[in-house]
């Protein structure tokens, strides 16, 4: 299964404070460990929300809102995408992560949808599109 592992923002990350040399080294070592375990597919750090935007939707209306955003603890400061066998394995790996922030912090793990998760739950539109594609395929073959 695939998980997205999100490092939540803190006041310090939102203030744009750079991590200490010590933390940088610990994080580099941790990232190397993830790579060497063959589970890391991607990972990036994000700028503070002061450099971000939000687009709000209401029917056909779109409004753009500038950062920074208030609810710091709900913001994401960085993320990884891992491929693991189970949620428990992801939790065990996260427990091995150095504290990513100078103060108390939080990391959230969410499972990424995969085609298998949809299974029979394909929406009717998708099913119709599938059927159409198959028909086209057969028509092509007949040609």
């Amino acid at each position, binding site marked *: 299964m695939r998980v997205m592992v999100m490092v939540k923002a803190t006041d310090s990350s939102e203030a744009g404070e750079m991590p200490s040399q010590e933390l940088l080294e610990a994080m580099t070592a941790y990232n190397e460990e993830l790579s060497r375990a*063959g589970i890391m597919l991607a990972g990036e750090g994000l700028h503070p929300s002061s450099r971000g935007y939000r687009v709000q939707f209401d029917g056909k209306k779109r409004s753009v809102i500038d950062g920074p955003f208030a609810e710091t603890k709900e913001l994401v400061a960085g993320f990884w995408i891992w*491929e693991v066998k189970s949620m428990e394995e992801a939790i065990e790996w996260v427990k091995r992560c150095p504290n990513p922030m100078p103060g108390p912090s939080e990391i959230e793990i969410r499972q990424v949808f995969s085609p298998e998760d949809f299974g029979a739950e394909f929406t009717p539109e998708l099913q119709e599109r599938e059927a159409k594609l198959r028909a086209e395929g057969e028509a092509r073959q007949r040609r």
Partner: protein
Amino acid sequence: MSDTHRAVEAVWRIESARLIAGLARLTGDVGLAEDLAQDAFVAALEQWPVEGIPDRPGAWLRTAARRRGIDQLRRRTMTDAKHELLGAELSDIEERTPDLAAAIDDDIGDDLLRLIFIACHPVLSAEARAALTLRLVGGLATEEIARAFLVPVSTIQQRIVRAKRTLAEARVPFELPRGDDRAARLDSVLEVIYLIFNEGHSATAGDDVMRPELMRDALRIGRIVAELAPTEPEVHGLVALMELTASRGAARVDQSGAPVVLMDQDRGRWEHLRMQRGVGALPRAVRAGPLGPYALQAAIAACHARARRAEETDWPQIAALYDALAQVMPSPIVALNRAMAVGMAYGPDAGLELLDALADEPKLAGYHLLPAARGDLLERLGRGREAGEAFERAAALTGNVRERELLVRRAAVARRG
């Protein structure tokens, strides 16, 4: 299964390869190392649900395994001088190094690589290598391996026991192969990983077209080797090939579970992250001189990945890559694929000409994709009846239920013209 039980299994998956590798270096015996690690795992299954998961579960397992090793060696009748020495050595290390975790962690990368080399050792049969690699490096339980290969648990158990015995009898040293030997041994490692991947990708038996879990296990082990041996171009070639092949996984079957051929796949369902990783790994697969077989196959897969629509496929480029592949890895299967690529690039007549040259190839006798390819080319030439016959012959030859259904369908379509 309780939460703690699942957590212990997760810790096992993370720690087992390093644990076994470290113990194998200390004992010089992979079989013994695995037994000790297993004992520690069983102890964890007993104690952690009661005492809670320790803060440093890896260190806990290492300590438990080492203690068991010392006990066991002391208890044994010490007829074997080597064992006596070993027991002394283990307790000696324990006394000298307060943090044994650190001692074992030293050079853990090299130990892991040694473990991979030994699990894929040429004295073992291909089946044994695959089972042992999944067990020792992938951290899979015997039951999981049995499920993956659709064989009884006892078969895998025997396979692993016998493999460990063979390694002990052949006195295979726990070392990194060097010089010419290294290239041959690395080939064996890559071969095993690709074999596991292919078993997951094109299941040779059973009702499913794919067993994605096995593909992911192979990919994971491939990525580990790429990290441990980063200067080996073909390792990156293999990883790129597996990522790119796996990226098409979701599109290879339709909702009913029936296979969909490459050119008919919905490319919107190809996985971008994997394609990116695959194409991204390719530059590291380039080496001085001609590209290796895995790099070439990955380059071919990358050609498909780059084509947003099937019609945009660069077939002349693919045909050229197959030419190069036929040079470095001549095989009837490569020749078959080359014929198909030429058929797409320069017309079905050109492809059919190459294919006809393979008709008497003994290695392709009984191989369903030969008549399937013929059927495809004949169909495009408008020779519907012959195409139908070819597809029917292919259907009779495949062992995969889903594939047979597809071929029977194609035969009917071809006959209708």
